[in-house]
């Protein structure tokens, strides 16, 4: 894969959204910006509408659990520009009990991915139109992709091989 010129995605973006960016990394040609939680909506809106970036396609929203660290979770956004053919990754850090602003007003396609993150990690997206579990049943307990959720699940009447729930 060709190494893309990352100056636009790194330097230009940094000077445009200075206050929102905490950290920037480039690994294997991929640009990652760690941004402030409250500015994610504005940054997405800027990236989508600015003609130089033109990030019109939301590829995915996902969560990651760094158990033992504070803040505990990361929410990762992958954006792509169909016209400019460039990708960018935004990240924000969030702790247990905190919520993240939903980007559904900017990208309507964030609806299901944000529900998936809520389902798997229990991260709440503020302003999401219909935040419910998407894969698991509505009465499911716990969030399976958290690192402290056992691989075998919790013991109940459907899962006799699961682990006992800690008190």
């Amino acid at each position, binding site marked *: 894969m060709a190494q893309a010129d990352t100056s636009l995605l790194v330097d230009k973006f940094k000077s445009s959204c200075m206050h929102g960016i905490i950290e920037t990394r480039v690994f294997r040609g991929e640009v990652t910006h760690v941004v402030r939680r409250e500015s994610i909506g504005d940054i997405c809106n800027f990236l989508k509408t600015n003609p130089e970036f033109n990030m*019109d396609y939301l590829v995915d929203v996902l969560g*990651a659990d760094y158990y033992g660290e504070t803040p505990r979770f990361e929410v990762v956004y992958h954006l792509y520009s169909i016209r400019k053919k460039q990708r960018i990754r935004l990240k924000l850090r969030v702790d247990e009990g905190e919520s993240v602003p939903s980007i559904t007003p900017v990208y309507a*396609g964030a609806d299901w991915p944000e529900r*998936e993150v809520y389902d798997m990690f229990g991260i709440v997206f503020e302003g999401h139109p219909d935040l419910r579990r998407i894969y698991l049943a509505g009465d499911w307990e716990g969030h399976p992709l958290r690192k402290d959720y056992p*691989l075998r699940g919790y013991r109940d009447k459907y899962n006799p091989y699961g682990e006992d729930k800690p008190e």
Partner: protein
Amino acid sequence: MNERDDIIATQGITIHMGPQHPSTHGVLHLVLDLQGEKIVRAEPDIGYLHRGTEKIAENLLYHQFVPYTDRLDYMCAMSNNLAYVQAVEKLLGIEITERAKHIRVIAAELSRIAGHLMAIGAWALDLGAMSILLYAVREREIVLDIFEMLCGARMTLSYLRVGGVRYDFTDGCKEACEKMLEILPGRISEYERILLGNRVWVDRNRGVGVISAEEAINLGLSGPALRASGVKWDIRKDEPYLIYDRFDFDVPVGTNGDCFDRYVIRIEEIKQSMRIIRQALRDLPEGPFNVDMPELVPPPKPDVYNNMENLIHHFKYVSHGFKVPKGEVYSSIEAPKGELGVYIVSDGSEKPYRLKLRVPSFHNLQTVRHMSKGMYLADVVAIISSLDPVFGECDK
């Protein structure tokens, strides 16, 4: 308007379609709010096939996860293998051999043909043209026979592995591919004659489930369905991986964004895939089909039985796996259904810390709500088929 008309025309009703329904391509559950026969709101409910693939991946060695990817989009397992091994290779920072690249292109395009044939066959069956399914499965059989010759499996292939492919592409496989390239064009035009000559089939697709390019992009649609709306975006062309930039092929684009265009795009993509396979077969170089890195590639199986060192090597590979540098990558391919991406966070150990699959069926299904608004109940069947969701992939 008499009293009777009033009752028939305005009665609102909510029906549940699926999860056990022959036209929902697996276990899709749709909650449909109807006004008479028109859709007011269609709400897909997914997750009936959720197996926690991402959680499983966090507890497996990198090479142990390849067979799990077969079970995502089980209609075209090669593409899933490719997306995963490519992401791991990107993280490792290795380059595979020329021969392996060619073999991978052939494998991925064969699986695209198999996937699209199944999509069109099932779609026609859903709309009442049963013979097409039988023909499509007959042709799919040719492709599956090639897979069997290649790796011994027909559906869950696990053929690609980190560092290359599992077995060499033999002359027999090459002949079988060439034979397929001779047979298939005639059969494809036969489908076109049957389907385009069938007024019922054409009318049930044309103008149904229309979505504009702007809405499709905003909702995250990708693959043939997005191209049918007139967006020329194909990852094989726009961000070429493997050696797609060396081959001459076209990206078909639709204009209306309806079900009919999505059908035309798929037929055209089968033809383009055949073009790519023909060129890849022609250019297929001699040489090794795996990288020369013993930590990534186990010894050939016959040697394991006869040689102590190879037995130890095999044992180390299977039981310990290999370490991957710390970091995070996202790598995506143009799978038959759209953008299939794999995001891996590595903590430097033998197992991925976090693995996220960006599966096209999941994102594409979001648009059902939008496409089916104001359509008739029977049109929902055409719309779902035109998106070609596979629930092994959608529900992960």
